[in-house]
């Protein structure tokens, strides 16, 4: 399913727009990353795509239909992990299933599987207040992945993870992406990560923000972590870095 | 001597009542309106209560000097060992009655057997006087079902939730005004003419503030007389003073009812307020028989006409 961002602007207060005339088209099954400075409006843009917020101007289309409320095909991973503190990690992960109907044996084992994937198989009976920050974001991640959505919107899902866990997660995401082929929009502030995972990378410029640059990433899939140390890769990372720098200087 | 009183500091006199200031006590408001209390050197204050028990408690607790209370409340307080003096007979007639709808055909107490009968509350004169009625017919409260019905005690009667209700003359008047319809009334005074309300003081006050009490009773007596002669004027005054006084026609009717109960044949020669010791003895005896009192209180010894005699 494709996502079209059509001349979108956003104001919270009058006369100080956050986003102005943003245009983009994300193809079906494409993996797009969005980078940009803190406070530039990445989260806001993603929330509008998710139907959690309305643009002040312009519109967003998913699969040809205008978005004005959250849609079934879309799964959203919040920047700050939002969990229910009265549910164990397992119960938190099962939430999407519960909301869709009954939770059967099958769903339960799927949830356990995915918790294992994010390295929490031993902790699934803990309550959120007993967990570390990284554990919480992994739970939120597991809850998103379990739904196997057509469109996956992720807001810095790996920001709270250590290098090693992050790599594992990146790897899993890549694997699941290949398997289910969701259209993915991925916000990150880790440029390496963006380049490693994406088909295209958008750079959001500052105040009012718009997409100032767009890079197609040429590497074949599946990509391996050793790619990071290849010169073509590091060159691309450096370029993107300079792009953001330029964007904020403008 | 009246002028000399005016020059002096006014002396406080607090009267604890069994009720809020209501139309039935219009003569008091007449006295207030006309400044008779000040003329007698009194700073009069009306202390409200909910029942005769409150009035007596208020004089015992020192919240008031004199109590306007029903005789049952006085007798029960004496039973508790309180030292009291009954000094003035406010209503020598028993105002309590038993009211039933004509259609239920209750003509004698006997007809109540096995029925629901409403009273105002279990601590009110209605209940005690109902017992008196039952006793006169050789029955006890076990033979009927007593129901405390609250302020609107005629409501259940109209709803036919009870066959009869124990009430007072003024209560009956109001209920009739509200469309109660045709009723049968059994009057308690035909059985035992207990004086309804009396002025009571503690023995201490009686000894210490005799003069004050006489001055107050004098004003009271004068106001009763005035109200007897000028009910219309009293009805007007009540509109400003009484909490239930907004309807002047009603005021007038109520005042007329109370005027009748304020004076009886005996008082016509002994003067208003005269206490008939014999009837008090009879009341005590009856109450002992019914069980309203558990032990004798020698009411004859605390009933005194000393102050009444000093009144002009």
């Amino acid at each position: 399913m494709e996502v079209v961002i059509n001349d979108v602007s956003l104001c919270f207060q009058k006369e100080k727009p956050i986003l102005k005339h943003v245009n983009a088209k994300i193809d079906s099954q494409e993996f797009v990353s969005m980078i940009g400075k803190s406070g530039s409006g990445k989260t806001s843009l993603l929330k509008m795509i998710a139907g959690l917020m309305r643009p002040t101007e312009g519109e967003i289309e998913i699969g040809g239909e205008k978005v004005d409320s959250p849609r079934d095909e879309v799964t959203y991973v919040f920047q700050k992990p939002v969990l229910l503190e009265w549910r164990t990690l397992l119960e938190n992960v099962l939430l999407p299933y519960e909301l869709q109907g009954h939770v059967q044996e099958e769903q339960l084992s799927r949830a356990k599987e995915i918790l294992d994937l994010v390295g929490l198989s031993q902790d699934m009976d803990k309550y959120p207040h007993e967990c570390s920050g990284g554990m919480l974001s992994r739970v939120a991640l597991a809850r998103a992945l379990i739904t196997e959505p057509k469109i996956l919107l992720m807001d810095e899902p790996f920001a709270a993870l250590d290098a090693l866990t992050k790599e594992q997660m990146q790897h899993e995401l890549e694997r699941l992406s290949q398997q289910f082929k969701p259209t993915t929009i991925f916000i990150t502030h880790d440029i390496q990560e963006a380049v490693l995972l994406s088909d295209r990378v958008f750079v959001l410029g500052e105040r009012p923000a718009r997409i100032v640059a767009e890079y197609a990433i040429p590497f074949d899939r599946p990509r391996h972590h050793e790619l990071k140390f290849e010169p073509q890769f590091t060159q691309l990372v450096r370029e993107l870095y300079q792009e953001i720098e330029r964007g904020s200087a403008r | 001597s009246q002028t000399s009183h005016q020059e002096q500091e006014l002396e406080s006199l607090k009267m604890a009542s069994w009720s809020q200031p209501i139309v039935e006590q219009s003569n008091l408001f007449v006295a207030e309106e006309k400044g008779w209390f000040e003329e007698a050197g009194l700073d009069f204050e009306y202390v409200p209560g909910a029942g005769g028990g409150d009035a007596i408690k208020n004089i015992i607790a020192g919240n008031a000097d004199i109590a306007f209370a029903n005789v049952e409340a006085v007798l029960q307080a004496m039973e508790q060992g309180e030292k009291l003096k009954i000094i003035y007979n406010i209503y020598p007639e028993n105002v309590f009655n038993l009211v039933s709808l004509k259609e239920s055909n209750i003509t004698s107490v006997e007809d109540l057997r096995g029925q629901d009968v409403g009273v105002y509350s279990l601590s009110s004169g209605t209940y005690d006087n109902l017992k008196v009625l039952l006793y006169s017919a050789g029955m006890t409260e076990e033979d009927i079902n007593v129901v405390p019905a609250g302020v609107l005690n005629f409501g259940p009667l109209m709803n036919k939730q009870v066959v009869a209700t124990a009430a007072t003359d003024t209560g009956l008047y109001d209920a009739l005004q509200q469309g109660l319809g045709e009723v049968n009334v059994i009057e308690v005074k035909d059985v035992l003419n207990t004086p309804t309300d009396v002025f009571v003081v503690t023995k201490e006050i009686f000894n210490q503030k005799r003069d004050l009490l006489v001055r107050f009773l004098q004003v009271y007596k004068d106001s009763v007389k005035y109200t007897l002669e000028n009910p219309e004027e009293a009805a007007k005054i009540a509109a400003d003073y009484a909490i239930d006084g907004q309807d002047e026609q009603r005021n007038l009717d109520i005042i007329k009812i109370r005027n009748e109960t304020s004076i009886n044949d005996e008082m016509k020669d002994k003067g208003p307020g005269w206490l008939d010791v014999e009837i008090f003895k009879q009341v005590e005896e009856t109450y002992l028989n019914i069980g309203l009192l558990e032990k004798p209180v020698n009411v004859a010894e605390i009933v005194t006409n000393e102050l009444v005699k000093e009144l002009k």
Partner: protein
Amino acid sequence: MKKPSFYSLLLFVGIIGIWEWIVYACQIRPLILPAPSAIFAQLITQLLNGYFWPHIWATLLEIIGGFILGSIMGIGLGFLIAQSDTVRNIIQPYLIASQAMPKLALAPLLATWFGFGYEPKIIIVALICFFPLLESTITGLTFVDQERLELFRSLRASKRQTLLKLRLPTAVPYIFSGLRVAVVLSVVGAVVSEFVGANKGLGALIISAQYDTTLIFSAFILLTLMGLFLYEGIHWTEKLLFKKYHHSRREWR
């Protein structure tokens, strides 16, 4: 209060209409249930001729006096308890007991002790306000995010500072919710204490209204209006002055 919608008004008119109709159709006596038109007529006449006003003022005085007293006590003690562990430990058992006491049952005794003026009524009202405010103050002051408490601990805030700068702002919505409950209970407290013995006040009117049910309804409507204004007053105070303590939470209305 939002402007009532069309349907709300319709509902109101409907209920009043049905009531009026039933009273006429079934010939219900005013003693049992007066017609709305009769109540309304009486209400207007007596307000115009000034009969109700002294009673309204008397009741209002008791309500406001008791409410202020009770709120100061309830919130104050709530602070003390949330602040001092010693105080808490010593008075905790009594606190719950005092909360569980049916204070209105004391009305007859208070009348004997304090006389018949405004004092016993104000005391009753204050006692009645006290409990919900204590409860909501303590709840608000102690239901603070663990993380924020850790922040204040790490900044070495004193107990007093934590109370004033963290617990108090957190408690504001709870305290206001308590105030709203309390102000409504104040009205009840004033009325019931007037039942027991008063010369003046809408409660005294109700209890001495012999068989004038219409009067009872009128007084009841006045009391409801009083409660409504006080309730809304508190609601608006919060909305205007303490809005920021609701940030990040969804408000109703």
